């Protein structure tokens, strides 16, 4: 029987094998409905561990001005996400603007910019007030991720912060290993916003 089946021409044999594989896959749940995976929710002041950095979101502030930074539009305001970040990769990194996003906040200028794609306009190392710093492996630092928000947009009471990670893999063109595929890996829901504009 088996020999007779195997002696069939490939044009008949292959579709039969494919159908059999699909049927067997169905027996083991291959045709089951898969729900979208839920992103893990992390509480404020809790470390979200991952690569190439660990991130602990500690708060959000809205301020009218920041030393050394100029608003693009008079009357706009700054939204600052405060977080402690520790590089877990093997090298010092300065791509920290990829670590945090706040897409639920309306009126962010960088969200309207095709190049910025919602990245913060500045990342400031609070120790020493350094803009766009390198962070070293194993040395956690407090950072402020800064966005400009339009004056016409409402100041949020609380914000869900997205924590993004990257994947170390070979570049499909060059073969060099590097960090690619920035992707949201966790959320910090309902982080209270402190409005410091009048303080």
């Amino acid at each position, binding site marked *: 029987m088996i020999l007779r089946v*195997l002696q069939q021409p490939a044009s008949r044999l292959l579709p039969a094998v494919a159908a059999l594989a699909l049927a067997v896959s169905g027996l083991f749940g291959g045709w089951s409905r898969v729900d979208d995976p839920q992103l893990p929710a992390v509480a404020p002041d809790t470390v979200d561990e991952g690569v190439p950095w660990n991130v602990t979101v500690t708060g959000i502030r809205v301020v009218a001005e920041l030393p050394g930074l100029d608003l693009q539009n008079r009357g706009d305001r700054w939204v600052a996400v405060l977080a402690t970040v520790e590089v877990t990769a093997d090298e010092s990194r300065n791509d920290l603007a990829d670590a945090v996003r706040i897409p639920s906040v309306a009126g962010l200028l960088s969200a309207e910019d095709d190049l910025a794609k919602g990245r913060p306009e500045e990342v400031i190392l609070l120790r020493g007030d350094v803009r766009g710093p390198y962070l070293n492996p194993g040395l956690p*630092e407090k950072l402020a991720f800064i966005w400009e928000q339009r004056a016409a947009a409402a100041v949020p009471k609380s914000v869900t912060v997205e924590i993004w990670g990257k994947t170390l893999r070979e570049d499909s063109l060059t073969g060099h290993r590097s960090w690619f595929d920035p992707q949201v890996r966790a959320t910090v829901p309902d982080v209270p916003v402190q409005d410091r504009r009048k303080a």
Partner: protein
Amino acid sequence: MSDLGRTVVRHRRPSAVRRRTGGAVLVLAALAVGGLVNSRTPDTDHRERPFVATGAVGRSVDARAFDVTVQGVRGTMKLGRGANWHDTGGVWVLVRVRLVARVEPVLVGYAAVRDSAGRTYRATSRIEQPLDGRTLQPGVAVSAEVAFEVPPAVAPTLALRLAGPLLDQRMDAMAEVPLGITAAMVDGWLKDEKITRLDDAEVA
């Protein structure tokens, strides 16, 4: 099956099943050999790694476009630069180097220290380093300190790495000098509360 004491061998055309089985075995064998070769071949990063010339403190190391000599190492918790001082969550490591361009003007764009686990710590961007943007002229020796910020636990395993290219050091020369830091030196730095000022660059 025998005729006059001799064995008669019949030559038959192999069946379709045998042909297909043989073909499948050949394909699997080719895949296995290819996989084996692939697994033993160095990857791109290894193949295009920097050409590292290793030396020792006090001895000149050839980094193709320039020579480097590590003259000494200091450490501190409070780094003075300009009118300010800077604290750290780890420890500051200050490496004094003497650099000489060999043939043409050179910018030493890459300075880092590497620990025994392979982690690399770039020269700090928190301050303006004395060698930042400084072009070395051939034959003119320049001495300066370079500041690094590292976790104290890794300091005794550090080696300095210097190269010309700022961003991409692949397939170019790189000087590497183990710094010879001891745990006792690090303990002393951690207890030192005075401000240590970074030495400026000077023609040596």
